[in-house]
């Protein structure tokens, strides 16, 4: 018994460096939350900053400019997520219709082409978009060559920003997001289809009555995950595509935290907003997980 115990502990010693690493890089940053309770002055250490209690939080809700900014970035975060939600069934239908294509070679080509954009960064995508939609880009040159005065101006306009950004996301990720549905379709029982064919069910009827019902649970799980994650938009896309003209509609919560804390050096306010975000995200995560437990019987995470 004693030997076994030693053995157990020796194994722990192997993993100890990893645990220490995780604590230093993932848990230790929590001390940064204390910046939310001081009046931060650049260049001064935390200990020398004046402790102000919850004043920064109160400022957030009473300062009209801050309030306006927060409402604006929350509106953008919700807006972009809502538009993305309208497209959320697209990967499923993409996978369903592509798997109905008989020519396997064509199927493969479509998959290869649509998955490629997932592997390039938002900076590259912005550079490409500039070539396509810039003032001398492909689209505007073609319009000019056709003799129209119309100009496509999606990159430097504050109209339809959410839709533009979501369409770009679709361009990047449609093929990638469809993969999980492909896997789902590949796992479906073929006998049901054969039985339906014997009964004279048409292709659309088979898709509607057999394929879709079996993929819907996957759709709901992914939807729940995305709801649990919707505050975590990341900044890459919005940093790359943001400019002075569309900033009012493109600045999402994550980007705002970055701009506030790093861009303008208001560390305290940045931490306040970031902390509130982390807490709300955690609550959303638990709600999503519980919802999944109720709907599916198992938790997502």
């Amino acid at each position: 018994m004693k030997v076994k115990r030693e053995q157990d502990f020796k194994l722990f010693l192997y993993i100890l460096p990893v645990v220490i690493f995780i604590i230093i890089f993932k848990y230790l940053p929590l001390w940064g939350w204390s910046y939310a309770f001081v009046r931060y002055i650049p260049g001064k250490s935390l200990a020398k900053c004046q402790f102000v209690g919850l004043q920064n939080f109160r400022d957030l809700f009473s300062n009209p400019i801050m309030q306006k900014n927060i409402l604006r970035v929350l509106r953008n975060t919700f807006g972009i997520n809502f538009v993305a939600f309208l497209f959320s069934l697209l990967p499923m239908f993409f996978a369903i219709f592509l798997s109905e294509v008989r020519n396997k070679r064509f199927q493969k080509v479509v998959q290869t082409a649509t998955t490629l954009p997932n592997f390039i960064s938002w900076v590259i995508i912005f550079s490409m978009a500039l070539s396509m939609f810039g003032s001398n880009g492909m689209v505007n040159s073609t319009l000019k060559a056709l003799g129209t005065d119309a100009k496509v101006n999606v990159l430097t306009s504050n109209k339809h920003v959410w839709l533009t950004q979501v369409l770009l996301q679709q361009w990047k990720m449609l093929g990638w997001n469809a993969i999980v549905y492909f896997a789902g379709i590949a796992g479906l029982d073929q006998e049901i289809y054969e039985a339906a064919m014997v009964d004279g069910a048409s292709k659309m009827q088979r898709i509607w009555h057999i394929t879709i019902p079996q993929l819907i649970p996957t759709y709901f799980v992914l939807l729940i995950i995305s709801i649990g994650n919707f505050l975590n938009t990341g900044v890459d896309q919005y940093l790359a595509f943001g400019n002075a003209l569309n900033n009012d509609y493109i600045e999402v919560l994550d980007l705002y935290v970055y701009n506030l804390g790093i861009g303008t050096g208001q560390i305290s306010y940045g931490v306040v907003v970031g902390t509130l975000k982390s807490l709300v995200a955690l609550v959303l995560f638990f709600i999503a997980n519980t919802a999944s437990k109720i709907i599916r019987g198992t938790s997502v995470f």
Partner: protein
Amino acid sequence: MAKTKAKVKLTREEIIFNIITCTIFSLIVLVCLFPFYYLFICTISNAKLVDLGQITIFPIGINFDNYRKVFGIQNLLHSAKISVLRVIIGTSLTLLVSAYTAYFFTKQNMWKRKFWYRLVVVTVYFSPGLIPIYLNNRMLGLVNSFWVYIVPGLVSVYNMILIKTSIEAMPAELEESAYLDGAGYLTRFFKIVLPLQKPILATVGLFSAVQHWNDFFTTKLYITNTSLYTLQFRLYELLNQVSAAAQQIEVSGMDSAASITPTGIRMTLTMVIIIPIMLVYPSIQKFYVKGIMVGAVKG
């Protein structure tokens, strides 16, 4: 045999269905690939015509001046070196550490294994936030250090879970025989587990390499020393300041004849960054369905 032949005869509905879906999918393919093609033809066309927006579908005045001169931008070769170093060092160390962690977490008899495993995995779902992490890394001396690219991402929990799932699927007898021969944990890890896990390591490694290559935000957040800039960040900068790049070329002594323009340089740099991705893409494609399925099984 007769049955399959009968199936080949398509109904009217199916023919219409096929025509519609194939047309739509062809359009989608075109939309996905055309930007890549367009970027490429612009980089090899006459730069002035590109600037005037005269290039639409075919290249005009084919030349490779852009590619010859893009590395004339100040320190661009150096940035390329930083990018490559980051991908190589970052990917190999992440793989090694993630696999090491995964291996030891498959050992059920570790002291308080469940607790340590949870402590590690929870970090996927909860982040202290961007600024606290920044402050922490600053305190650790990672600002303006090459290691900020490597160290914070050493233990990739998601990759660790993928590798762990794969190790658990391995027959236990393989390790047992080595154990009976007196091999310690590390010997077994390096000599038996790692070689047998090549497929999953290749998958995870390719994804992690692409991630390293594509990241520009780390540079934006932590690096002000220009000698540590990556290619992605150089492009990001260039996009924010196209005219400044034109000046840089002049400063560096390249003759800025009309054959190159800021637009041309920007497009060429974009192409230079895409090409390595294109080169590894076929291997990635071979693996990704598998990789995702492993993840899906684990949930």
